[in-house]
C-alpha cells in the first residue's frame, strides 16, 4: 500500500512551482500585503517632513503620534479579532466609556487610593469583558446579527455610563494611577508600551496559536468550522470578550491620558477602529485578518491628523483631504499588492 504512495510521488510537476511559492509566502507573510500601507505611511511622513519638518521629525512628535495611536490602536486590535472571526463590534466606544466611568466612581477610586490602583484597572477590564460577554452571547447563542446586537450594546452601555456618572466628568484623584500610567519607560511612554504589548500579544494569538487559527476558520466558513469540530459558538463568545477586554484596556489608557472617566469618552471609536482594521487589509466579511495591517492603519490615520494639525489646516479642508488620502492609500496598496502577486 505504501508503495502506491511512493510511486505517485514521482510526479515532478508537483515540485515545479517552488519559486513562485516563496513569493506567495512573502505575500502571505504580511510584508508584501502591507507594502502599500508602508508606502502610504512613508509618503505621509515625507509630506510631514516637507511641510513641517522642524516639528514633525522630532522625537517628541513621534511619541505624540504613538501616544495618540495607542488608545484607538488597542481597540482596533480587539476589533481585528472580531472582524476576522466574521463579526463586527459597534459598541467599542460605548464600552470604553462605560469601563472608564465604572473604574472612576468614587467607590472604586476610594478602593484604589486605600489599597492599589490595580482595583481601578481590574474594574475597567472586568466591565469591558462583561460587556463583551453579553455581546458574544447575544450573537452566538441569541443568533442576533452582530451589527444589531452590538448596536444595542452601544446604546445601552453609553446610557448606563451616563446614569452611573450622572453625566459628570469624573476626575481621577489617585496619584499612583496617574504616576504609573502617565510615566515612561526607557523614554517611551507607558501607554505606548501597552499598545506595543497588546499588538504583539494579538499578533501571536492570531498567527501562532490554535485560537487564532480557529478564528480564521470561524470567520472564513462557520459551517465548515462547525463540521470540523470547532466550538463555533463558544469561540465567537471568546472573540467578543476579547474585544471587550481590549476596550477595558483602552479605557484605562484613556483614563490615564485624560485623568478622567466620562460617558463621552470613546465617541465614534467604532468607525475609527473599523476603518483602521479594514484599511489594514482585514476582510470585513471575515476569514482574513492582519494585526500588522491594523497597526499600520491606525498609524496612518493618526499621522494624518498630526500632519494636518502641524500645518494648521482648516477642519473642513482636512475632511476633504482625508477622504482623498484614504482612497489614494487604498488604491496604492492594491496596485502594489497586485504587483507582488503578479496578477
Amino acid at each position, binding site marked *: 500500500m505504501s508503495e502506491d504512495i511512493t510511486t*505517485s510521488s514521482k*510526479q515532478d510537476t508537483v515540485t515545479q512551482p517552488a519559486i513562485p511559492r516563496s513569493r*506567495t509566502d512573502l505575500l502571505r507573510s504580511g510584508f508584501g500585503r502591507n507594502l502599500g500601507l508602508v508606502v502610504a505611511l512613508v509618503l505621509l511622513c515625507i509630506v510631514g517632513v516637507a511641510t513641517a519638518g522642524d516639528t514633525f521629525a522630532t522625537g517628541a512628535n513621534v511619541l505624540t503620534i504613538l501616544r495618540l495611536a495607542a488608545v484607538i490602536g488597542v481597540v482596533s486590535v480587539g476589533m481585528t479579532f472580531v472582524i476576522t472571526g466574521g463579526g463586527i463590534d459597534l459598541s467599542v466606544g460605548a464600552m470604553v466609556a462605560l469601563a472608564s466611568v465604572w473604574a472612576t466612581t468614587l467607590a472604586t477610586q476610594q478602593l484604589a487610593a486605600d489599597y492599589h490602583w490595580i482595583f481601578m484597572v481590574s474594574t475597567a477590564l472586568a466591565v469591558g469583558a462583561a460587556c463583551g460577554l453579553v455581546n458574544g452571547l447575544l450573537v452566538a447563542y441569541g443568533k442576533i446579527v452582530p451589527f444589531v446586537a452590538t448596536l444595542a450594546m452601544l446604546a445601552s452601555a453609553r446610557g448606563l455610563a451616563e446614569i452611573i456618572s450622572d453625566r459628570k466628568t469624573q476626575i481621577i484623584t489617585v496619584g499612583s494611577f496617574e504616576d504609573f500610567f502617565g510615566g515612561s519607560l526607557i523614554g517611551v511612554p507607558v501607554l505606548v508600551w501597552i499598545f506595543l504589548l497588546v499588538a504583539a500579544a494579538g499578533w501571536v494569538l492570531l498567527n*501562532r496559536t490554535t485560537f487564532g*487559527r480557529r478564528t480564521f476558520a470561524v470567520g*472564513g466558513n462557520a459551517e*465548515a*468550522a*462547525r463540521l470540523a*469540530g470547532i466550538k463555533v459558538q463558544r469561540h465567537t463568545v471568546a472573540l467578543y470578550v476579547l474585544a471587550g477586554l481590549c476596550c477595558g484596556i483602552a479605557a484605562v489608557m484613556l483614563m490615564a491620558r485624560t485623568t478622567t472617566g466620562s460617558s463621552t469618552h470613546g465617541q465614534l471609536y467604532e468607525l475609527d477602529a473599523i476603518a483602521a482594521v479594514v484599511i489594514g487589509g482585514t476582510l470585513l466579511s471575515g476569514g482574513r485578518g492582519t494585526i500588522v495591517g491594523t497597526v499600520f492603519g491606525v498609524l496612518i490615520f493618526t499621522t494624518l491628523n498630526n500632519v494636518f494639525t502641524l500645518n494648521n489646516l482648516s477642519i473642513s479642508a482636512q475632511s476633504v483631504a482625508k477622504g482623498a488620502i484614504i482612497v489614494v492609500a487604498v488604491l496604492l496598496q492594491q496596485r502594489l499588492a497586485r504587483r507582488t502577486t503578479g496578477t
Partner: protein
Amino acid sequence: MTDLLTMMGIVKEFPGVRALDGVDLDVRAGEVHCLLGQNGAGKSTLIRVLTGAHQPDAGMIRINDEPVQLNSPTAAIQRGIAAIYQELDLVPDLTVAENIFLGHEPSRYGFSRTHEANTKARAILQGLGHAEIPTHRTVGSLPAAGQQVVSMARALSRDARLIVMDEPSAVLDPEEVSNLFRVIRGLTDRGVAVVYISHRLEEIREIGDRVTVLKDGATVATGLDARQTPTKELIQLMTGRSIEYVFPPRTEVSAAAPVVLEVVDLSRPGEFAGIGFEVRAGEILGLAGLVGSGRSEVLETVYGARRAATGFVRVDGAVLRPGRVQAAVKAGVGLAPEERKSQALLLDEAVFKNITVSTLGRFASSGFLNNRAERDAASKLAVALDVRPAGVDQPVRNLSGGNQQKVVLARWLLRDCRVLLLDEPTRGVDVGARSEIYALIRELASNGVAIVLVSSEVPEVLGLSDRVVVLREGRAVHTGPAQEIDEHQVLDLVMEGSAR
C-alpha cells in the same frame, strides 16, 4: 463536419502556476467532445477561458473559422457558448426560475415577467426530466442534485451552439446520468456541440464521440475515438503511468471485532425514518441509494450536525448527546461532508491549514502551534493523496475541484478517528488518485476504524464496502454483505418505488 470551435496554443498563467501551457482543442458541430485529464490538468481552466471567465495569456480562439476575442462572459454568451460550471454558480436566494433566466430574464420594459419565466423554466425542467422541481422555490433550499439540474437548465435556457459541461455527473446517480445523456443526445441531434468533462470513463464510452486528453496544462492527445480507445491507453495518456482501476482486497472482519458505531431507529421527519445499523471496528459499511434518498442526512445526523427526532447513536457503547457535533467529535467520530465548498473548506486558507484544522490540538503545546510539525504532517498526506500542485501553502481556492476534494479527505485521514463518515469521498477525483484513496480507506479500516461510506457510484459502494445498506426515500430497504449483491440488484432496489 466542419469545426465549430478551434482553440490553439491557449496559455493561462496564474501567479506561480502555468495552468494552461499551449492547449489545442477543436470541436465539431453536433458532437460530444470529451475532455479527459487528471485533477489539476487544466480542464476547468480551459473551459473558463472558452466562456470568457478567464482571459488567456496567449493563444487563439476561432468560432466557425472566425477569430474571436472572448473578453467577457457576455461575449461568449453572445457567440452561443453556454456552460455548466464545475463549482455551482447559482444565486442561493433567487428562485429556480430566476436562476435559470439570470442575465436574460423575460421582461417587458424592464419589468420581469415572472409568470412567463416560470412557465418557460418548467418546460425546460420537464425536458430534463425534473418537472417536480418547483420553479418558484429558492435554489438555496434545494439539495445538491437539484441545484445541478438547475445549473443544467440554465445552460439549456440559452439558445446555445456549444454547451460545456464540467463534471455535470459528479453529484448525479446512475438514473440521473442516463437522463442527462438523453438530453445530450437531443442536443447533438439538433447540431449543438457538447464539451463533456468527467472522470468516469464509462460515461465517456457511452456518450462521447471524440476525446481530447490534457496533461499538466497541455494537450497530449486529441481526436481519439471515444468508444474504441482502450482504457489503458487513456489512463496512460492522462497520468503517464498505468494504473489498475481496482478495489483493494477486503480483509475479513472477524465476528469478534467490537461494534464501534451503533445507530438505532434514527429518524427525522421528511428526511428519513427508522434507520438502524451497526459498524464493527475494521468494517466499511456502504450506504447506497439515489440522490435525495437521505444518505447525507443520515450521516449528518449521526455526526450530530442535525438533531434526530427519534433514535440514538452509540459509539463504543456510549450514547452520544443528540444534535451536538462536539459530542461526536469527542467520541472520535469524523465526517467528511459532501459539499466541499460550503461545508468543508476554508477557501482562502492555505492547504495545510485546511488539512490540520480538525487536528490542531495535536500540533500545539499549551495553545501555541508548531507550524513546522503541522506543515510536515499535512504535506505528507498531500503527497499521499497526490494533491497538486504539491505546495501546501497556497490557498485552497486556487486548487482544482478534484484536488480540493482530496484536501477535505486528507483532513479526516489525519485525524485518528474511531468512526469515519465519508460522504462522496471521491467526488470529482481522477482515476489515478481514486485508487489511492480506496487503498487509504481500506488501510484505515484494517487499522480498526469503523467507516461509513456514501457514494452515488454503485460500483464504488459495492467494491469498497464490506456490507451495504440500500436506502430508498429515507428508509433502509436492504442490508447485507456487499459480495452478495450486484449493481443491478441495487438499482432495482432503489428504483422499486418508481413503479408506483
